[in-house]
């Protein structure tokens, strides 16, 4: 299965600059690239030095609403060319327009009857402009959805912003998306890519952060960690988007949990931007990780072992205008587990 990395970020946030850096790194030499631009004339692909059959320009418009078919077709063509031995690649990077919602592209990868057998979600990488992000997340739903869907966030233009506002932005991003690690464009490509993906890499801090969390390497590294988990009280003026965790003691009935979460996302998936969790299931020694973006939930993965700390299940939700306490009560009622609390 070839990983597909989705590179997104609001208009002017530095996606193409980051893509240039990524592609110049030896680790990314085997990447094929799909570039989507909004507008009549595609420009971004001219900014890339490498133009060959593994660089495909999608120019029918915004990727999330008009060219899902084109994305599927382009990925299918890349796969066919590789199968015939005409090109080689070991991963794909899709650069979206600044207005794109990552969810439909992830949905295409998961639901397309052919693509889903050959490609997998390799992670969502989002650029966030340190100068303009505060305004964007306050007023643009597209920006919030991108941040919520991110597995990793790269802050750009940090050299143009005041250190205090960068620190405030990091705090705000951690509140919006506590499961994404936040890096800077000044970090090395190796740092940006190490452990990147939708899988379990970010679960160690997620599971281990209890009341006594003191690990400065955790994703909420430069702000007060004692508050990093409990964000349901402060919507932060970010279009009503909040995040919180359910912490569950006791083993979960997988079947009822799956039925409950499926129903919850069916009814409220438009307002649940992200679900990510590590679960202790009845009859299982090892934890199981789940990962969803809006209505889409990826195949759950079996983790090798529990991270350090208490073996409590933890599910992080990033959502809009839904009550964390109502979700807690619903989870408890459906699963029959009484020891369920919100946040840390």
């Amino acid at each position, binding site marked *: 299965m070839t990983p597909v990395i989705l590179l997104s970020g609001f208009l002017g946030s530095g996606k193409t600059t980051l893509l240039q850096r990524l592609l110049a790194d030896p680790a990314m030499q085997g990447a094929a690239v799909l570039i989507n631009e909004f507008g009549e004339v595609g420009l971004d692909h001219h900014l890339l030095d490498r133009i060959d059959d593994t660089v495909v320009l999608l120019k029918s418009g915004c990727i999330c609403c008009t060219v899902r078919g084109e994305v599927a077709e382009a990925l299918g063509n890349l796969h066919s060319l590789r199968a015939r031995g005409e090109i080689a690649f070991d991963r794909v990077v899709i650069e979206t327009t600044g207005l794109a919602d990552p969810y439909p592209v992830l949905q295409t990868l998961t*639901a397309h*009857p052919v693509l*889903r057998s050959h490609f997998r979600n390799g992670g969502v990488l989002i650029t966030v402009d340190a100068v303009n992000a505060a305004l964007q997340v306050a007023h643009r739903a597209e920006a919030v959805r991108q941040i919520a869907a991110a597995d990793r966030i790269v802050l750009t233009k940090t050299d143009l912003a005041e250190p205090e506002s960068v620190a405030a932005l990091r705090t705000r991003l951690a509140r919006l998306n506590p499961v994404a690690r936040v890096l800077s464009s000044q970090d090395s490509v190796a740092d940006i890519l190490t452990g990147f993906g939708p899988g379990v890499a970010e679960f160690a801090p997620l599971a281990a952060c209890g009341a006594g969390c003191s690990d400065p390497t955790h994703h909420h590294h430069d702000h007060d960690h004692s508050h990093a988990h409990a964000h349901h009280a402060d919507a932060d003026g970010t279009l009503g988007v909040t995040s919180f965790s359910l912490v569950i003691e006791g083993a979960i*009935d*997988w*079947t*009822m949990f*799956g*039925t*409950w979460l*499926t*129903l*919850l996302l*069916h*009814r*409220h998936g438009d307002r649940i931007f992200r679900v990510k969790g590590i679960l202790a299931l009845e009859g*299982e020694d090892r934890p*199981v990780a*789940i990962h*969803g973006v809006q209505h889409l*939930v*990826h*195949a*759950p*993965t*079996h983790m090798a072992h529990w991270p350090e700390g208490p073996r409590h299940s933890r599910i992080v939700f990033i959502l809009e205008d*839904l*009550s964390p306490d*109502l*979700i807690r*009560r*619903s989870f408890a*009622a*459906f699963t*029959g587990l009484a020891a369920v609390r919100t946040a840390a």
Partner: protein
Amino acid sequence: MCSLCGILGCDDHWTNAVARPGVYTRNLDSRARRAETARRLGAANAILSYRRLRLDVWQGRSYVVSSPTGASSVFEALAHLWPEAETLAGRAFDPLDEALIAWMERGRA
């Protein structure tokens, strides 16, 4: 084939993922599949009973959701359970509805 969208092989619901390395699933062999299907019917029916609906397996390969008036709907993909049930009930199933939460709590009491 999916009866709603006409796509072949679309019943790859995340709770019933195709077995492959690293993936957690109970979709392992026919025995495990049958056991999980029985558990799934029990879980779904606990919720569906709130609107007097019932889910069963149809001819071993599909599902049928039915109402006490005899109306029923057959579907193949698990992902379609709740849209089909809501169409049959004429009302939504909302897990954040206080009345449904209370129903589930009473069912476990």
